[in-house]
């Protein structure tokens, strides 16, 4: 009958309307290597990596509330492990990646157990010290890691390959975060720990185990990202994979985007990378963007502690309100 056909047509249109934007986005993302120049493939691959790294940090920093200032160590560790297994042991890339992830998570569990007992600022300092320590160790163990000279891997130039690998790992990171932290009991427990650790313990949450698990999870992905990075750029050394700037970026991106939210880190990564690229274009490859990044962090802490995501959810300050807020800050 005519009305039934019309109904079916209307339903089909509705479904198409709802899913179209998302499908197009997915299609675009999947076909990047075929539709953009090599430069852009590299840029997008890097953005993906940072989006994944920022999210990993977010797991322990944003969701659990334990700000880790040495997280880059897991990335560097992964890079070196993959490099060493591929070069010194001759094992395939995939195996190297897996081992990198697992060993990173294991290390996180080992140092997490004593370190997560420290609160707030102490945890930040301890993890910062840990990060620096790992870098020093890598510099010293030169027969294994190549020391300050670095480690060279087999060259393998295949941009689309690395794009898809990075896309896969980042996707895995976000999917895992979504499933375990937004949708499962684990996530509720983690948030409870962040909000009031003592009370959480009192209502039956095994805070020690949950914290250590969260930390291990947050270290697993950077380990893998490090491995991918190592093979992608072919040459690594302590400053490139274990430098402080790695943790700095992770923290900045997560904060800017919105800590504790699922999409915040992605936003943060895109914005920060964009700012960096634009500034490089305008001012030449310099370090001016660092000033902007630092200022951004300060601004986020002062005005939008919930990041850009939080900004979208709450109302904007009118210029008048903003001025009066500023006045209040400097009034005695």
């Amino acid at each position, binding site marked *: 009958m005519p009305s039934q056909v019309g109904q079916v047509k209307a339903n089909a249109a509705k479904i198409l309307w709802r899913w179209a934007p998302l499908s197009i986005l997915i299609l675009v993302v999947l076909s990047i290597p075929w539709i953009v120049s090599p430069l852009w493939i590299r840029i997008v691959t890097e953005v993906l990596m940072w989006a994944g790294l920022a999210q990993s940090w977010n797991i322990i920093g944003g969701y659990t509330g334990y700000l880790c200032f040495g997280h880059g160590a897991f990335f560097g560790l992964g890079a070196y492990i993959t490099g060493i297994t591929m070069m010194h042991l001759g094992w395939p890339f995939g195996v190297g990646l897996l081992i990198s992830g697992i060993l990173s998570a294991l290390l996180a569990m080992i140092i997490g157990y004593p370190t997560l007992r420290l609160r707030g600022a102490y945890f930040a300092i301890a993890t910062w010290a840990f990060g620096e320590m790992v870098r020093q160790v890598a510099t010293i163990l030169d027969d294994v890691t190549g020391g300050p000279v670095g480690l060279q891997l087999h060259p393998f130039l295949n941009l689309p390959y690395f794009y898809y690998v990075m896309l896969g790992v980042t996707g895995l990171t976000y999917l895992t975060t979504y499933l375990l932290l937004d949708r*499962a*009991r684990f996530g*509720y*427990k983690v*948030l*409870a720990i962040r*909000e*009031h650790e*003592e*009370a*959480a*313990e*009192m*209502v*039956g*949450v*095994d*805070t*020690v185990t949950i914290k250590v698990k969260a930390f291990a999870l947050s270290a697993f992905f950077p380990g893998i990202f490090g491995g991918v990075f190592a093979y992608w750029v072919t040459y690594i050394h302590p400053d490139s994979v274990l430098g402080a700037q790695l943790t700095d970026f992770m923290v900045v991106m997560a904060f800017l985007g919105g800590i504790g939210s699922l999409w915040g880190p992605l936003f943060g990564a895109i914005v920060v990378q964009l700012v960096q690229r634009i500034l490089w274009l305008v001012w030449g490859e310099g370090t001016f963007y660092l000033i902007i990044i630092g200022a951004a962090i300060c601004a986020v802490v002062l005005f939008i502690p919930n990041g850009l995501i939080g900004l979208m959810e709450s109302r904007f300050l009118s210029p008048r309100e903003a001025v009066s807020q500023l006045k209040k800050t400097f009034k005695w």
Partner: protein
Amino acid sequence: MILQSNDLVKSFGGVTAINHLSLTVEKGTVFGIIGPNGSGKTTFFNLVTGMYPPTSGTVTFNGRNITGLRPHRIAELGIGRTFQIPAPFTKMTLLENVMVSTFIRASSLKESRKMAWEILELMRLDDKGNTLVANVTLEDRKRLELARALGTHPTLLLLDEVMSGLTPAEVKGAIELIRSLRTEELTIIVVEHIMDVILSLCDRIAVLDYGQKIAEDLPDHIVNNKDVIKAYLGERYSARN
């Protein structure tokens, strides 16, 4: 006998907060603990729930030595408590707050949700179930404290000054609520300041002073106990009676 503390001692540096305290609480009763500020009431709760270990002495629950166990284990075993100053999970909803406490009893998220709704209904907070704690009044937060403690399905419930900060009308409501919770399965220990509340609710009362038990008896006897009157109630109350 559901709870027993044996010669419990707790010192913090130079201060002895609990000084050789031995108490026994019978199953299914409402037991009251009163005493002036600093007499060790909250410290006692903290020791029972495992927040910190005692300097010496033991705590036995249902015949089992629970001294030194971690709080989450003790919660699993069946002891729940409320905090004097509510400690909710601020950025979560009331429902989510209670859900977390049911995790040790429920086998799935769905079941947790169901249990949590039931408790919220019992506490008459179901209309605010999906509101963030940050947006809710103090009285509601106190009720949420209780709801969350109930979420662990305790057999022993420790209530730490739930009446503080409530208006007389709210106090009446709270007394009714606690009365309604009484069953053979649930033992309640109440720490309070307000004499009338304690006297009307409890089957037995212990009086603490400087970390020691100076009396333990039926409510009527406690009121007439000379040591208690001297230490806590003051001359005027005894004169009234």
